[in-house]
């Protein structure tokens, strides 16, 4: 049961990162590799705020804001001019942006080449139910993710902008012909998804206790695995896949040890699932 708790906390960070990637893929059909760069920028901003204020809550907010700004900058400066090009063009640009961010972050005037400790004072009291203990930081991470997911669900299902995102994801051309300002809706979608990535960066750094320039490397492909498992562009499938993958990783390692590197498991699961369901667990069949 203790492992289950760890899996849920880790899954919360996977989901927060992957859900933005899924939202952006859904609306633009771009595999936004640079999303992991946004995650690092969010973690860095959160780290700076935590170092000067000691508040994890403020750090998460700062990470979300920095993530939103960075994501919108990538959209406007990099993707916007190439939206009418074949999809591999923004994909290549996205890989380039991700490498650029990781290299910049490794400069001494940003994060530098070495990890920074981020041993946060747990913002919530630890919980203990029988033999199961939940640290205040893990609880904070899970509650933050839950709050953001509820917020996302409300925006998606209840607001006009959420309806517009769904309409654009279904048929971008028709959405435009229906008077929807597609550019503006894509911008808000990018800002929201990127804010989640920024928050995920801070949550992961707080949970693991360190921030470093290359912390986006593993999430860059693991988030992609989660999105594909959930069904490309299926936001709620991404939630299930994110928690499922984290739980599977944690439980397998707890029960069988490191038979394989933890991160290799994600790809083994992906390969096995795609052999049975090529469209992912919750993806729709392509006619």
């Amino acid at each position, binding site marked *: 049961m203790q492992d289950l708790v760890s899996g849920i906390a880790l899954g919360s960070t996977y989901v927060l990162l992957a859900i933005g990637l899924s939202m952006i893929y859904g609306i633009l059909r771009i595999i936004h590799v640079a999303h992991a760069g946004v995650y690092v920028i969010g973690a860095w901003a959160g780290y700076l705020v935590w170092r000067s204020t000691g508040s994890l809550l403020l750090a998460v907010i700062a990470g979300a804001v920095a993530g939103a700004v960075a994501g919108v900058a990538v959209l406007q400066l990099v993707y916007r001019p190439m939206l009418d090009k074949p999809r591999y063009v923004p994909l290549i640009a996205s890989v380039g942006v991700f490498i650029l961010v990781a290299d910049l972050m490794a400069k001494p005037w940003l994060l530098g080449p070495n990890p920074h400790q981020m041993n946060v004072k747990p913002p919530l009291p630890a919980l203990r139910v029988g033999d199961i203990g939940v640290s205040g930081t893990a609880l904070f991470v899970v509650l933050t993710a839950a709050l953001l997911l509820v917020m996302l669900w409300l*925006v998606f299902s*209840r*607001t*006009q*902008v*959420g*309806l*517009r995102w*769904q*309409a654009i994801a*279904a*048929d971008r*051309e*028709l*959405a*435009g*012909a*229906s*008077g*929807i*300002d*597609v550019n*503006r809706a894509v911008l*808000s979608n990018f800002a929201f998804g990127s804010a989640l990535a920024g928050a995920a960066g801070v949550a992961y750094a707080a949970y693991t206790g360190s921030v470093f320039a290359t912390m986006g490397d593993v999430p860059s492909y693991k988030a992609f695995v989660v999105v594909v498992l959930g069904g490309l562009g299926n936001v709620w499938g991404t939630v299930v896949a994110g928690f499922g993958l984290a739980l599977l990783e944690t439980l397998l390692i707890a029960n069988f040890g490191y038979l394989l590197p933890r991160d290799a498991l994600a790809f083994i699961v992906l390969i096995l699932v795609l052999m049975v369901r090529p469209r992912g667990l919750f993806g729709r069949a392509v006619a």
Partner: protein
Amino acid sequence: MSRLRVRDVTVRFASLTALSNVRLEVDAGEVVSLVGPNGAGKTTLFNVITGFVQPVAGTVRLDGQRLNGRGSARISRLGVARTFQVARPFPELTVEDNVIVALGRASYPHPLRTFGRARTPARRERAHGLLTEVGLPEPYDRPAGDLPVGHLRLLEVGRALATDPKVLLLDEPAAGLREPEVAQLERVVARLRERGLAVVLVEHNVPLALRAADRVIVLAGGEVIAEGTPDEVRADRTVIEAYLGTANA
């Protein structure tokens, strides 16, 4: 001044000339039917008017304001709405949401309002009113993708009307409709004309196209070959023989 004025529009796809010096004028409160064989350029003309295709020559103006060169969303917000030859719903949204998502600017006076509640009582009432007006039966809370083809066409008209258009372009709205639905559609078009909308109707159901229209334009090979009142076009022997068929004469 005509509400919609298309002047000398020419469209080329590689070596194919899809439209050649096409002119079209529609006044407020007027229904113009566009008829012609497959490949005549009818849908291409709609695509030009709505910004999906840019012409190599010619202009499109709405109340004197130039439309060509603008994006389709901007053109829609300026007051030109359309339906598609193949009905295109947002399949996972409910029928009601398909209309609510397209509700015009009057419903969202400020961009930040889009972060507000989508399904306010006023917007739901407006959406239901439009769906009732076009004759789409309830329930409206089912996914649009579950609707039969005929109902999808009616939903498209409802969604187009949700944008508060001045000009409505209907691309084969009767295709796949049963007789009572065609009659309903005809009544809807007549009501829209009474309300002052300019309507352009592309329709393969020629009797319907002639019945519903104030004027008829016949396109063939990307050129206008005849224009006039339904009676004039009906009496045009070349048109009858070449495009309408003697049975419709």
